């Protein structure tokens, strides 16, 4: 059962990632990225990370991708233009990418001590996760709230800046 689920959703993730590269319209790329993220959430569940699977769906497939599709539609992004890349880059780039994946794959497959995964080996419950997070790692957790506050302020400042300049120019 786990094997079938793994193959279905790993295949979905890889197919979505390939589709992200092949599509020329940004909204199609965004939708295939959502497929990748939901498939990854199922893979997290197979690895026993229940909290992260739900967080992946809510944060990534929900919030972040809504932001992406919102910006794609706001900016009315059209098809991307096909530009002529150099022939040498094409001839060298894809074999190089395949070679890097092959090297990583041989390292992973030859690695000693990697076991097998199954839910019977235990699901990390949310209670266990939060105990570690709020006891040992409380300070980093609190610091992330400052990070998010700064990110919000930065996003608002960046998105408003052009507007303010435009008004100033219009005022002159």
């Amino acid at each position: 059962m786990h094997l079938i689920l793994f193959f279905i959703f790993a295949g979905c993730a890889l197919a979505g990632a390939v589709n992200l590269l092949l599509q020329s319209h940004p909204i199609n790329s965004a939708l295939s990225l959502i497929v990748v993220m939901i498939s990854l959430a199922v893979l997290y569940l197979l690895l026993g990370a229940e909290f992260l699977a739900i967080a992946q769906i809510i944060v990534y497939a929900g919030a972040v991708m809504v932001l992406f599709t919102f910006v794609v539609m706001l900016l009315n992004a059209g098809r991307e233009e096909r530009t002529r890349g150099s022939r040498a880059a094409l001839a060298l780039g894809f074999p190089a990418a395949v070679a890097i994946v092959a090297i990583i794959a041989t390292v992973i497959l030859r690695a000693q001590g990697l076991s097998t995964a199954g839910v019977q080996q235990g699901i990390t419950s949310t209670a266990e996760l939060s105990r570690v997070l709020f006891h040992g790692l409380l300070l980093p957790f609190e610091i992330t709230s400052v990070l998010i506050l700064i990110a919000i302020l930065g996003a608002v400042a960046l998105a408003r800046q052009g507007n303010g300049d435009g008004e100033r120019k219009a005022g002159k």
Partner: protein
Amino acid sequence: MNSFLTHPIPVSWYLLVSAVLFALGVIGFLVKRNLITVFMSIELMLNAVNLSFVAFAHQWHAVKGQIFVFFVMVVAAAEAAVGLAIIIAVFRARNTLAVDRINLMKL
């Protein structure tokens, strides 16, 4: 056939999926010509790394690996908000999203 169905999955397969996803993200980052799609490729790379974090956390029964993924998610969400704000600012200034035309700092 029954043993095939109940056979547990090697952790290395998850790592392989993660490696291939990361490579696809790198290819997208280099090949795509739309600013938003380039940014999506970065998110794809972050997700691929998260998958290997979860796989290793499962391998060594380490809860801290999953907490690391949680922090990566937080940082990625903040990065997406700021990055998309920058993209909006760039679009206002240059009126295009094609990375070839945003070449003010190019040699």
